[in-house]
């Protein structure tokens, strides 16, 4: 199927993908921990950005536990099609749900960083078969 690529390019590609995976992981991991450290924040986010009211601490903890499994599997490169796909969709939801922030851009500059992160998720999903450095088979 795919032809062999030059060792230099393979190296650069694998290092790039590793960097993207670790970068996306950092954000996803911190937001996962936030669900445990500060469940009230997650409840507020679900309510304000997604219109899902009435979440309890218990729901936040369960979501947090599932998300923890997902982000650890993601950083280890396990079941890439599934984990990278899910991370891409989840972060897509985050990015698009903040639309009100983009309408008032200069008071919400930090929100824009969601876009290159989404691009990183997209790149990882698209190139998942080439992302093999420091992954678990």
């Amino acid at each position, binding site marked *: *199927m*795919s*032809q*062999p*690529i*030059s060792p*230099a*390019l393979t190296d*650069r*590609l694998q*290092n*790039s*993908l590793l*960097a*993207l995976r*670790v*970068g*996306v992981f*950092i*954000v996803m991991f*911190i*937001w996962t*921990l*936030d669900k445990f*450290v*500060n469940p009230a*924040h997650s409840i507020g986010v679900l309510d304000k950005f997604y219109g899902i009211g009435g979440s309890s601490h218990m729901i936040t903890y369960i979501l947090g536990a599932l998300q923890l499994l997902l982000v650890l599997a993601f950083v280890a490169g396990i079941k890439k099609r599934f984990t990278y796909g899910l991370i891409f969709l989840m972060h897509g939801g985050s990015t698009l749900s903040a639309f009100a922030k983009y309408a008032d*851009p*200069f008071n919400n*500059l*930090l*929100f*824009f*960083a*969601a*876009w*290159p*992160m*989404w*691009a*990183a998720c*997209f*790149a990882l999903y*698209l*190139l998942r078969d*080439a992302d093999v450095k420091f992954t678990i088979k």
Partner: protein
Amino acid sequence: MSQALSTDTNNRLQCALVALRLGVFIVMFMWTMDKFINPGHTAKVFEIFYGIASSTTIVYILGALQLILVLSFLAGIKKRITYGIILLMHAASTFSAYNQYIDGFNNLLFFAAWPMLAACFALYLLRDEDVKFTIK
């Protein structure tokens, strides 16, 4: 030098690189515009995050230079220089916010600087492959 990638991988790689370039551009462009719309914000950022005092005029000049840079970056012109400067600039932004990472849960939005840094790094590393929608 480098052998040809399979058409499929090559297509995927080029789409991925366009997405990364566009994503990084959006952020860089908004922060550039902010220099013109709200120079006071930039002056404050310089003082708090970099310890540099500046004036409105300096902010406008920096904004103008940055605008040229980010548009060249988007167009893929002189990639080694433009991608390299964007990488260095965003690395400085990322590292200068170290206080925000220490108080992580009150500054969750700051962490998105890291995957963006990874995106800048990937673009620099793979700049020779990034040819889709670029100006020769």
